[in-house]
């Protein structure tokens, strides 16, 4: 089964930090990511750009309306995602528990949400 891991963080807190503080906060991520990769559950993944670089498109009066900013304004914003293949939800939880956002920077609102999904069927 496939699961989408969505990694969240508190963006305003992040913005208020100095570069050296940020470097320190993410210093463990690289190694954890590498360990995750090595375990062989990963399909794909990546880090997301800041919400200030985000654009949303939604229908207004039957036409797509383009606005800047994320779809929902919340304290915690999506910062990264990973697609994994696991036997079941519990194995996926085990994998998610080793993601940097499940282990590091509690005070920066890090956390992982786990959503089962399937790719659209190829026509």
């Amino acid at each position, binding site marked *: *089964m496939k699961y989408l891991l969505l990694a969240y963080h508190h963006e305003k807190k992040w913005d208020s930090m100095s570069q050296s503080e940020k470097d320190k906060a993410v210093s463990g991520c690289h190694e954890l990511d590498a360990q995750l990769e090595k*375990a*062989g559950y990963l399909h794909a993944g990546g880090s997301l750009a800041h919400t200030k670089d985000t654009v949303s498109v939604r229908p207004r009066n039957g036409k797509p309306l383009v606005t800047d900013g994320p779809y929902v304004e919340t304290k915690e914003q999506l910062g990264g995602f990973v697609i994994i293949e696991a*036997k*079941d939800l519990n194995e996926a*939880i085990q994998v998610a528990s080793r993601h940097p956002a499940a282990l*590091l920077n509690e005070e920066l609102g890090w956390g992982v949400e786990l959503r089962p999904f399937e790719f659209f069927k190829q026509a």
Partner: protein
Amino acid sequence: MSGGDARTVEATVDAVYRSDARRVLATLIRLLGDFDLAEEALHEAFRAALEQWPGEGVPRNPRAWLVSAGRFKAIDAIRRRARFDAAAAELAERLRESTSESAPGEGESVEDDRLRLVFICCHPALSPDAQVALTLREVCGLTTEEIAHAFLTPAPTLAQRIVRAKAKIRDARIPYQIPEQAELPERLDAVLRVIYLVFNEGYTASSGGSLVRGDLSEEAIRLGRLLHELLPEPEAAGLLALMLLHESRRTARTTPDGDLVLLDEQDRSLWDRARIAEGAALVETALKSRRFGPYTLQAAIAAVHAEAPDAAATDWAQIVGLYDVLARADPSPVVELNRAVAVAMRDGPAAGLPLIDALFARGELGEYPLAHSARADLCRRLGMTPGARASYERALELTRQEPERRFLERRLRELPLR
């Protein structure tokens, strides 16, 4: 070592996964002392097999190879992870203390590991719900989603139940071992209860639209077989027999539309004779041991039913006798109810009715729909229509099963108007 092209090797790895993955997992849990770590190690071991076997050939003893590969990779992984993860750090420390344990390849000790796994999944420190979930996932290899679906539970709820159960085993340091002789009867009881719970959930869904969820029953029978094979105790044989004998009537107990057919109205030619023969033989062995208990007695009752060509020819005297023994071995209001119904079959409904009314008068089974429908049935046979109507209606209020509801409504419609 023997070579082979990649496709053949892949098929071999698949076959080994199906036949041996649960055994390898059971041994890895013992060696690593942690469920999650063992599961990851299992995953890694099979991945390594897919990478290495095409080049190096399939090892002579694949299971031993997988255990050793999994163990090596897990220890490696846990040491690397210890820097970030407090739980991993503790685990690494514990593994350092117990490094030089040997990994058994085959034979008895591997089967012991499977038995250890059954016992730890059914450990009394875990809630009954957690015991069932853990057993189905770790011993039977069902996925969380499959178990959630079978028990009509949201998958996240079930997943958390499993996470918490594993955490409890880890934090309470519940030992991964087969119970000592003195402790065995009680611990075995817990295992039997879990298996029977799974069976009943499949046989009679406690709620919802379908009376039969056969996959769970099949899984329970597989578990029962495994337990009986690993631990040939009389009650393990008794439970397996009981499940086989119930299961033998599966096709006869519902109509094609999913309606309930009572035992006395079932088409006995639909009963599965092979299962009956296997069940009856197991009952006999268990009874001979003289150390049998409630499961064997219930199986013996089911076997008497199975031997009768029709309901009227059933040896009701023997069934009442077996219920008498059961009521002493494992007293419960439900056993008394079943005994009352058997007495009604042996001596007529007028003999059974006061026994059921006495149960109600003691405040027992008032909320149990089958007690009311049994009473209604006796009243109906005695021509006591108002009493039958009141009891069917009470049963109807209490039942949560769709097929049972339809059955009771049909019985109500069939009652004479006055």
